[in-house]
């Protein structure tokens, strides 16, 4: 046996051993999260890895055999609702959240529930700005962490679901609530909040995983006297929104946390909040030990179309201008694909990846060059992209194999209306809204963009704009879903369709992949069901 043969055999055996790890392990220290890319049989964070690439290193399911993919098991949630959860898988257990805020652990071999936990949600809970959803959990050490629409964060025993602690992140009576999957770092759990349609002041906060004690809180609207406060005229800052409702990304080497922020409030009437409205519609780079802001980049200054920048920032490294760069890329809700230097926050490029009618482009400093006359009016003004954007919360994917950024792209417009703005605690503070121009007048596409430039490599058209995440895999595949209930696989190189199945309910979720007993699986929520697919 040559050394090489032995190494190959050893790696294969090791892989098999890991794939068949006993169900009882359930201990996920921080180092496992840092090295998540080395254990693709697990899916340890919301997007699979701190870099948020939503890329699986498993290649058992590939271009040659994906046409044979079939359901392995299904799990139906216990209460109907909008099911947007992205599972976490560790050591043979899948952890999901069910709408509105239930956490359930499933046996990955069978889909049978191991435990379930439901928090107390008051009947008069305030959820303004989204359906009452939950997009997933975080795991760290022997605990699972989940937010709730009541504005709480809970820590559960990963083996049993027993509640370890439960704290109020902020006051739901003021419109604060949680829909995001928390992010577990070394000795801290990071969360953000929803509620910009109710006039909250957004923030990002870190909690001690052992006790639930708040370690720091960084507001996403500067306080009096702080830099950027003067970007809010007319005393509008304290109810200016800037929510933080999507899970961030993390670079362990730079020890930098990247978090995106939402729209200013009121959404559609900018007259009452003159200025750029920092740090709304931005990405923030934070020191995770202190919450200190390292740099920020604002995608849409003074937004009036509800174009939250709550899209996943993907981290990858590549050469730009002949030198290696550490990059951060976002396909923004405003229809531009941005590439930033994630060490410095320097703006590198922005390229439209969907139809837009509001800007002549993005200038050299990264600021949009506005076309006149696109603000909402009392009679309505039609603008591309749509109110829900050309992208939204659902995750894109980046494949290090193809160096392509895969984005479910919504091609749609909205007629934007301006209405009244009057702040009343716990009530909608939006000052208008929009009517979607949908149906046969709209469509969607999976677009493969060159990671460093945003240049379109290929697209695969879909019937209608939905809320569908993308997974790419080492098997050369891209998985995604549709509003009509299709789940499908494309060739990651050229977008050729290789497999699809109708699941009977809309896909408003992100796919993941995991392995158990030496077999690779792909999971997706659709309708009121979690589906898991494998090869025969």
């Amino acid at each position, binding site marked *: 046996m040559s050394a090489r043969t032995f190494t190959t055999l050893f790696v294969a055996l090791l892989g098999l051993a890991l794939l068949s790890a006993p169900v009882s392990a359930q201990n996920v220290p921080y180092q496992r999260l840092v090295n998540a890319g080395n254990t693709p049989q697990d899916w340890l964070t919301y997007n699979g890895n701190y870099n948020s690439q939503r890329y699986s290193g498993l290649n058992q399911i590939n271009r040659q055999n994906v046409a044979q993919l079939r359901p392995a098991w299904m799990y139906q949630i216990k209460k109907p609702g909008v099911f947007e959860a992205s599972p976490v898988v560790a050591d043979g257990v899948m952890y999901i959240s069910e709408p509105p805020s239930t956490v359930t652990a499933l046996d990955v071999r069978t889909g049978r529930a191991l435990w379930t936990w439901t928090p107390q949600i008051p009947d008069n809970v305030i959820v303004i700005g989204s359906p009452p959803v939950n997009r997933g959990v975080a795991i760290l050490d022997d605990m699972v962490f989940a937010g709730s629409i009541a504005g709480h964060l809970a820590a559960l025993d990963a083996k049993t679901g027993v509640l370890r602690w439960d704290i109020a992140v902020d006051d739901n009576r003021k419109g604060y609530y949680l829909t995001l999957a928390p992010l577990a770092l070394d000795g801290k759990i990071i969360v953000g909040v929803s509620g910009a*349609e109710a006039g909250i002041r957004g923030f990002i906060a870190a909690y001690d995983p052992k006790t639930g004690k708040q370690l720091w809180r960084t507001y996403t609207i500067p306080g009096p006297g702080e830099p950027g406060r003067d970007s809010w005229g007319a005393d509008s800052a304290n109810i200016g929104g800037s929510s933080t409702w999507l899970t961030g990304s993390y670079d362990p080497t730079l020890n930098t946390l990247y978090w995106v922020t939402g729209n200013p409030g009121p959404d559609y*009437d900018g007259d009452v909040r003159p200025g750029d409205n920092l740090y709304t519609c931005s990405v923030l780079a934070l020191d995770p030990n202190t919450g200190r802001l390292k740099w920020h980049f604002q995608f849409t200054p003074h937004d009036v179309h509800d174009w939250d920048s709550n899209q996943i920032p993907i981290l990858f490294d590549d050469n730009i201008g002949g030198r290696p760069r550490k990059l951060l890329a976002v396909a923004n809700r405003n229809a531009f694909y941005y590439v930033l230097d994630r060490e410095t926050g320097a703006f590198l490029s922005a390229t439209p990846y969907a139809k837009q009618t509001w800007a002549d482009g993005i200038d050299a400093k990264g600021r949009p060059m506005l076309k006149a006359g696109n603000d909402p*009016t*009392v*009679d*309505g003004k039609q603008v591309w992209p749509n109110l829900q954007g050309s992208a939204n919360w659902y995750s894109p994917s980046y494949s290090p194999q193809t160096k392509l950024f895969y984005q479910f792209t919504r091609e749609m417009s909205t007629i934007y*209306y*301006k*209405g*009244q*703005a*009057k702040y*009343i605690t716990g*009530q*909608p*503070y*939006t*000052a*208008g*809204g*929009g*009517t*979607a*121009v*949908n*149906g*046969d*007048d*709209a469509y969607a596409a999976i677009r493969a963009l060159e990671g460093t430039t945003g240049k379109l490599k290929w697209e695969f*058209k*879909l*019937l*209608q704009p939905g809320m569908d995440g993308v997974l790419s895999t080492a098997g050369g595949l891209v998985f995604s879903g*549709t*509003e*009509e*209930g*299709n789940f*499908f696989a494309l060739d990651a190189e050229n977008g050729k*369709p290789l497999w*699809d199945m*109708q699941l009977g309910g809309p896909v408003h979720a992100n796919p993941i992949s995991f392995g158990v007993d030496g077999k690779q699986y792909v999971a997706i929520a659709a309708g009121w069901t979690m589906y898991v697919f494998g090869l025969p």
Partner: protein
Amino acid sequence: MTLQHFRTFALIAAVAVASGGAAGQTFSQAAGGKQLFDALCTDCHGVNGTGDEAPAINHPLGADEAALKKIIRDGAPERGMPRVRRFTEEEVETLAVYVRTLGNGAPVKLAGDAGKGRAVYQKLDCQACHTIGGQGGVLGPELTKIGQRRAASYLKQAVLEPGSVRSKGVQGILLNGFSEYLPVSVVSKNGSETRGIRINEDSFTIQMRDANGKLYSFRKSELVNVDKQVARSLMPSYKDKLSAGDADDLVAYLVSLGASK
């Protein structure tokens, strides 16, 4: 007043309404309600609520206060009414009050006679494609309660220029604003063409029914062309086949269908 002047005036009025509370002025519900209604509701419900694609609402409404506010707040997607936009509770209240005032005017009398219209319907053999009370064909929308869904102006246009109106929210299958009874022509890889109306569609398949009522289901990967004829209807135009009086009678009959007696 020129259009531009009118818009400027409307904007000033809007600002006045928006800042009414802060300035300590009395918030005029009727004025605010008309402004919101004219901007957001007249495209479907017609000027002053006389109806069009959506029903006339310029008559006393059966809905109680809670039901009316719910439909203003959330729409009725299953009946083709989208949630127009998110309203504050104050805006909902304002609109509800204004909508009630629309019913205070004199009822609009239709030009035609419903009884005569029924005979026109039968003479034209509309039942070949449409169903009323369980009797008739299925190629076009069921009309049993069409008077609850559409108003006279829309129905008249649908009779005279069928391609110019796009049916939505009747069958409740393809929601999200898709056209229903959409004429589609598909060509398969072997060159055969199938024409019919779209029944349902997803990103990978399409289901259709031809003029004989036969159902087809295609995978799009097996088709070389899918032609969705958005501005067309399978229904012929009756513009040159009906006298003005017959058209009015037919419309009056359709409006009467499903109307509360």
